[in-house]
């Protein structure tokens, strides 16, 4: 291998030769660059890479490979998180405990495997690592599908509603005030006459003459006829109506008073 060829660049530092005596295939460097999620992730990588059994880890082998990586990373002056060094110490500790002679087993006491805690953690981490991948593979709103939201037209102007109660209250307040100002009396006109007055004025809006009879609604019953007649008289009194009869017993015509047009 040509020592001058840059084979990789780690954090901007050119890497010109592969370190010797490492069980690291050249492509593993890319993974180093890719940055592991932490020492557990690195250990899992080594275990999977070399078909080691996560439930029966050969500690000597794993420790050697792990330390080799750490050494490589340190040679490249990569800033190592303290967790990596802590893990290295832990691996060495487990390895050395395995080398020590085991105390004789007692009948009711299981001797704990020094690797047990590490294996539990590796399993737990791997489980979450896979869970993360599965979560990422699940269809996700905004990335893999869109939610539908149909715009509602800019809100129609909301009009205030008036209830009968509101009108009644407003009028009651007026009556109250009227009672206080005794010089001013609010009389209630016969409503139906008032309404009929408005009705007649409205039906004369055209301005022309209308026959007297046509203003009456015979189907409305006698009270209605009387109310209409009274309303007409009331309007005539206020010069809002002009009533004409050209001959005795002739047709009577009605139109808006000239002032009411």
């Amino acid at each position: 291998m040509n020592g001058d060829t840059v084979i990789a660049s780690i954090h901007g530092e050119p890497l010109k030769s592969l370190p010797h005596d490492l069980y690291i295939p050249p492509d593993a460097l890319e993974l180093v660059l890719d940055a592991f999620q932490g020492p557990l992730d690195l250990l899992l990588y080594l275990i999977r890479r070399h078909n080691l059994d996560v439930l029966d880890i050969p500690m000597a082998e794993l420790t050697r490979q792990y330390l080799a990586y750490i050494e490589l990373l340190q040679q490249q002056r990569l800033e190592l998180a303290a967790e990596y060094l802590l893990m290295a110490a832990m691996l060495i500790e487990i390895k050395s405990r395995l080398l020590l002679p085991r105390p004789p087993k007692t009948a009711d006491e299981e001797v704990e495997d020094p690797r047990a805690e590490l294996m539990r953690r590796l399993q737990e981490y791997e489980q979450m690592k896979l869970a993360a991948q599965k979560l990422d593979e699940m269809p996700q709103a905004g990335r893999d599908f869109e939610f539908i939201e149909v715009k509602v037209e800019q809100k129609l102007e909301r009009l205030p509603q008036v209830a009968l109660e509101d009108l009644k209250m407003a009028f009651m307040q007026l009556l109250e005030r009227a009672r206080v100002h005794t010089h001013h009396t609010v009389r209630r006109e016969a409503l139906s006459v008032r309404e009929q007055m408005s009705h007649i004025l409205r039906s004369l809006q055209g301005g022309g003459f209308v026959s007297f009879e046509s203003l009456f609604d015979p189907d409305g019953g006698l009270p209605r006829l009387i109310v209409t007649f009274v309303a007409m008289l009331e309007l005539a009194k206020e010069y809002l109506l002009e009533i004409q009869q050209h001959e005795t017993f002739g047709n009577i015509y009605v139109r808006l008073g000239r002032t009411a047009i």
Partner: protein
Amino acid sequence: MSDSAGLPFELQEKLKIILETAILASPEPLTLSQMNLLTDEPISRRELESLLFEIQRDWQNRGIELVEVASGWRFRARPHMQAYLDRLNPQKPPRYSRAVLETLAIIAYHQPVTRGDIEEIRGVAVSSQTLKTLESRGWIEVIGTKDAPGRPELFATTKQLLDDLNLRALEELPSPGQMMLEV
């Protein structure tokens, strides 16, 4: 007849589904040129519009409609659905001022009345805005002028008011005599 009849039926149906989905999923109105990105083969503007008209027809009896607005095509809730949508998002309904309500009450109970009549009963001036509010709501109207100096306009209430109050006739307004007893 539809102009998109030129396209094979299968393709038409497929394009309609894609267009409908894209317009529904788009937060902004979709332009015809954006829609052109959705078809694998280029299709003419006429064919595109004809597909849109067909989608419009498909939705014609639904609560949502496809409309063309200045910046493209979009779906929107039909205005008459607003009442239902409001139930999900109840807002405090706006209210009329006391001046508006009292003016309306006076016109209802004393019609036909002039502005002067209203002012006399209320004891304060009636602003033009108050009358305009009631007029534009369709609740009062001018039905003539009074034979008096200045020929003041006469106001009366409309059938619209009765409809909106759910009354058949003005007689059904609560009588103020009764109200006095309740006071």
